[in-house]
């Protein structure tokens, strides 16, 4: 199994470790609910070394990024970031990723851990012209600090002013002497930053952040709370909500598909889906008190199966059972009542607006 440089630190903190698609990762340290609340109310620290980091550089870098992702990398300013699906020509999603633009000849692409090899091979097969493409995942560390107190904690450790960095923008600078990409991004629906750095400095950064966060009771956060946090904010989990046989239009990610940038992988199919409609669409729902909906449970209407739950949980902030799933468009209107089949019994659920949780803007 692959290990992160912080593995011993997690074990010392009492984490329960699991195999997460080939990675030995902390799923929880204390309690998922406690960790979840720490991120919503204070600050939490995530070791995300397992994520993949690819660099695309050279005179044709922009042209290649434009072809590979659905977002418009030309419309990005230097030091701006876009969340984007990456599609095949048939519109299905290879992965979802973050696109960091340094300039038109230099991009950092951050992909899901479970897809590193698949993505690298796919992107490589798509390259055209004068471009250099490398996988730096093994030596790139990634720590996220998330929560309303994250900025105050991180600011103690860097002279780089954090306040001017807008959401989905980045800068570079030293944090406790370690060169970092400082990115105002996250996967929690909360304020916060993600730091990329040379992985050999993992313990230095982690320990400094834990120490600096003591006064706000910062907590290490495992994959369990990472999942409940991202689901409340309706952030996609690749492999669940989007995968090899769904498209961004079906997943209601229309805002990430920029047709006016010209042709790109999947643009024909996606345009057709946008204009003519889709056969399934991703919706959010809320269940009454009782058991939680889980990945793979059938969605039922009038006794027949019409779709499937892609993610579901008891939502610690909202204190109710929520989920995402694909249904036919005719059943996707807000307020529509469907049933979720849980262990052979149907439980009524109502389709509601998403994101389920939006942070109060300061």
């Amino acid at each position: 199994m692959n290990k992160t440089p912080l593995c011993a630190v997690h074990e010392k903190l009492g984490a329960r470790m699991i195999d997460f698609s080939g990675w030995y990762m902390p799923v929880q340290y204390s309690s998922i609910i406690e960790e979840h609340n720490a991120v919503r109310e204070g600050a939490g620290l995530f070791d995300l070394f397992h994520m993949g980091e690819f660099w695309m550089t050279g005179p044709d870098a922009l042209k290649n990024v434009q072809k590979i992702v659905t977002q418009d990398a030309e419309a990005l300013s230097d030091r701006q970031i876009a969340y984007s699906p990456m599609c095949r020509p048939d519109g299905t999603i290879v992965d979802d990723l973050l696109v960091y633009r340094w300039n038109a000849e230099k991009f950092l692409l951050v992909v899901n851990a479970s897809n590193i090899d698949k993505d690298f091979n796919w992107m490589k097969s798509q390259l055209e012209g004068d471009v250099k493409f490398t996988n730096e995942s093994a030596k790139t560390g990634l720590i996220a600090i998330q929560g309303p107190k994250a900025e105050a904690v991180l600011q103690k450790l860097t002279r780089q002013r954090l306040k001017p960095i807008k959401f989905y923008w980045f800068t570079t600078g030293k944090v406790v002497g370690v060169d970092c990409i400082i990115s105002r991004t996250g996967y929690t629906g909360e304020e916060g930053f993600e730091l990329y750095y040379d992985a050999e400095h993992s313990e230095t950064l982690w320990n400094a952040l834990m120490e600096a966060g003591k006064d706000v009771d910062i907590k290490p956060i495992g994959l369990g709370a990472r999942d409940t946090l991202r689901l409340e904010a309706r952030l996609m989990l690749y492999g669940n909500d989007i995968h090899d046989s769904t498209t961004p239009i079906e997943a209601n990610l229309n805002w990430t598909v920029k047709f006016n940038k010209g042709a790109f992988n999947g643009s024909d199919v996606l345009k057709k889906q946008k204009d003519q409609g889709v056969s399934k669409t991703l919706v959010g729902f809320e269940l009454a008190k009782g058991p939680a909906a889980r990945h793979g449970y059938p969605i039922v209407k009038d006794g027949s199966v019409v779709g499937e739950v892609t993610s579901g949980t008891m939502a610690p902030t909202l204190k109710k059972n929520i989920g995402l799933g694909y249904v036919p468009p005719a059943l996707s209107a807000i307020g529509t009542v469907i049933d979720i089949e849980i262990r052979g019994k149907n439980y009524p659920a109502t389709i509601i607006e998403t994101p389920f949780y939006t942070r109060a803007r300061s």
Partner: protein
Amino acid sequence: MKFTKEHEWAKLEGDIVTIGITDYAAHQLGDVVFVELPSVGSKVTMGKTFGTIESVKTVSDLYAPVGGEVVEVNEGLEGNPAMVNESPMDAGWIVKIKVADAKEFDSLLSEADYKKICE
């Protein structure tokens, strides 16, 4: 008090067996968010499932340590399932069963044998 390899405890008083999950199980499960209880009066069979227990992350079946009739369920768990984490061996009990065959209870694991399983 006796135990099962499915990490339940059972306490016999008269012909009533109170059942819950062990400290070890509660810790392994993490935050309990829902317990599906059987109805009072229903019959359960030793070793068969009689309900489920859900944490944020997982769903686990509950297995009856002994067969018999459900005479009481812990209704407090409906509003406060976290009681299973706070007090798994006491206030977080799950059901009470009127045992049909006392020999079933005698065949369960002793505390010492159960502890070996958890190591």
